[in-house]
């Protein structure tokens, strides 16, 4: 990934005072402030994510991590500042190319795993097409649920349901994939496996990924760049570049250094 070098020159931009580059970043957030009534969830957040970059957003609960993703998916219409995908404002259809894996599985209880995954297939795809079937079955296998395609969500454990949701997000083949703590319900082993799956998909598709997590280790292992949100309302506390080469070893010294840096920024 040659892209991984770019974050270095990006970090000043995250503070909001460098001039815009000519190419629009995949994700551009500037001076984003989001209020729910009197509660300010996010205040003056700046974030730029390059094409093909993998960014993790970490922070304590309630710092507005999820809100940031909701704005980017176009689920929040009212906010101050700018949020754009490939230069198009999320309120003007910029969010169309954005897929999201929610924190909760949010599956259709009446539909089996196969149908739930197929919900994610992009608009033009005929869901009854054999090729679409194969694709869905592949994804079910990718998330380690082969044999469960005909099961309903009620028959699955929380971790399995979360992986169905992950497969649905992957089926969408988005330009930008947002993930809201997608692995938090998984046991350690499955978590590692699914993290590597995500990295494979990211590499193959060259997608831009923004992952929200509270797991510092996960953030350092997966991301090119880690944005630390903090406080209430949430603001960007620090941006940590993870310098480790890919494919990474979980024990890489550079990862340890990045983790320390993130932890320091979180103030723990």
């Amino acid at each position: 990934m040659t892209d991984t070098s770019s974050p270095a020159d990006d970090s000043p931009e995250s503070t909001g005072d460098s001039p815009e580059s000519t190419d629009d970043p995949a994700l551009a957030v500037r001076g984003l402030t989001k209020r729910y009534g009197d509660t300010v969830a996010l205040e003056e957040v700046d974030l730029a994510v390059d094409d093909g970059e993998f960014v993790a957003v970490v922070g304590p609960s309630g710092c507005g991590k999820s809100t940031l993703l909701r704005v980017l998916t176009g689920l929040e219409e009212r906010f101050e500042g700018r949020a754009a995908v490939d230069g198009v404002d999320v309120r003007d259809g910029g969010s169309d190319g954005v897929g999201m894996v929610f924190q909760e599985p949010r599956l259709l209880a009446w539909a089996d795993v196969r149908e739930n995954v197929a919900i994610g297939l992009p608009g033009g795809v005929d869901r009854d097409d054999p090729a679409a079937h194969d694709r869905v079955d592949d994804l079910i296998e990718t998330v380690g649920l082969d044999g469960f395609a005909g099961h309903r969500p009620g028959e699955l454990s929380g971790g399995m349901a979360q992986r169905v949701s992950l497969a649905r997000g992957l089926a969408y083949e988005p330009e930008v994939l947002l993930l809201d703590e997608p692995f938090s319900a998984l046991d350690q082993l499955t978590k590692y496996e699914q993290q590597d799956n995500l990295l494979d998909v990211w590499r193959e598709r060259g997608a831009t990924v923004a992952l929200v997590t509270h797991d510092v280790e996960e953030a350092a292992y997966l991301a090119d760049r880690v944005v630390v949100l903090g406080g209430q309302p949430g603001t960007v506390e620090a941006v940590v570049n993870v310098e480790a080469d890919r494919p990474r070893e979980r024990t890489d010294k550079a990862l340890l250094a990045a983790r320390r840096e993130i932890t320091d920024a979180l103030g723990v």
Partner: protein
Amino acid sequence: MATTRETETGEGGLDLAGAFPDPDRFRWLLGLVVPALLVVVWHLLVVTGVFAAHQLPEPLRVVETLYGMAATGELWGHVAITLQRVFFGVVLGVSVGIVFGTVTGLYGLANDLLDPLLQSLKNIPSLAWVPLFLLWFGIGEGAKVLLIAVGAFFPVYLNLSTGIGNVSEDLLEVAEVYDLGRFESLRRVVFPAAVPSLLVGIRGGVGLAWMFVVAAELIAAGQGIGFLMSDGRVLARPDIIVGSILLFAFFGNLSDLAVKGVKQRVVDW
């Protein structure tokens, strides 16, 4: 991969669909105990003269009367016409209820326009409609079917409308994020999610249809279980009256069980 599956199946509880333990299977029989006791008490009360036989006949007398009418074939005509009225009334009421429920559930404007009116109409007792329906539609079958349809309409309308309006916001967001589009999100998310509410409504509608058919038949009919009932009063035959009540109870229950069965089959998640 295999390891993962093993650990997850262990905590997933996939064996839930297995056979039920034996005692539970016959549990429903317990529900028959109290009615059986009541019949015995009823019999004793009449035999010992607490109730005069011309006011309350013995249980066996009722059975004999029904059996006699069934044997001569007289009973079937009454039962058939009542069932037919209920059936067409339910079909009509449920259909219109689905249309109104869907429209008001989907469109806030339609809901604001129609819901207050329908909410107040639903409180009109069934008998209150009868004179008007007789005036408008005469004493033919049409009036009765329409009256029953009015009864079946309201529960379907109310439940479906709220059911569609209350589809989980979380799922709607999923539909939005994955760009399902209006049609697909209705087909795959909204309507399936509202099916349980619809069936609850249909169950209520069928129940009310039986109430309304009595109203219709008591007042203006030459045939039907309700007619049989009022005929029993005219002829001073309490056995016929009680027999008709039992017939209503039987068919009302049967139709309720049928809808419940459909519900359990359709809403099996």
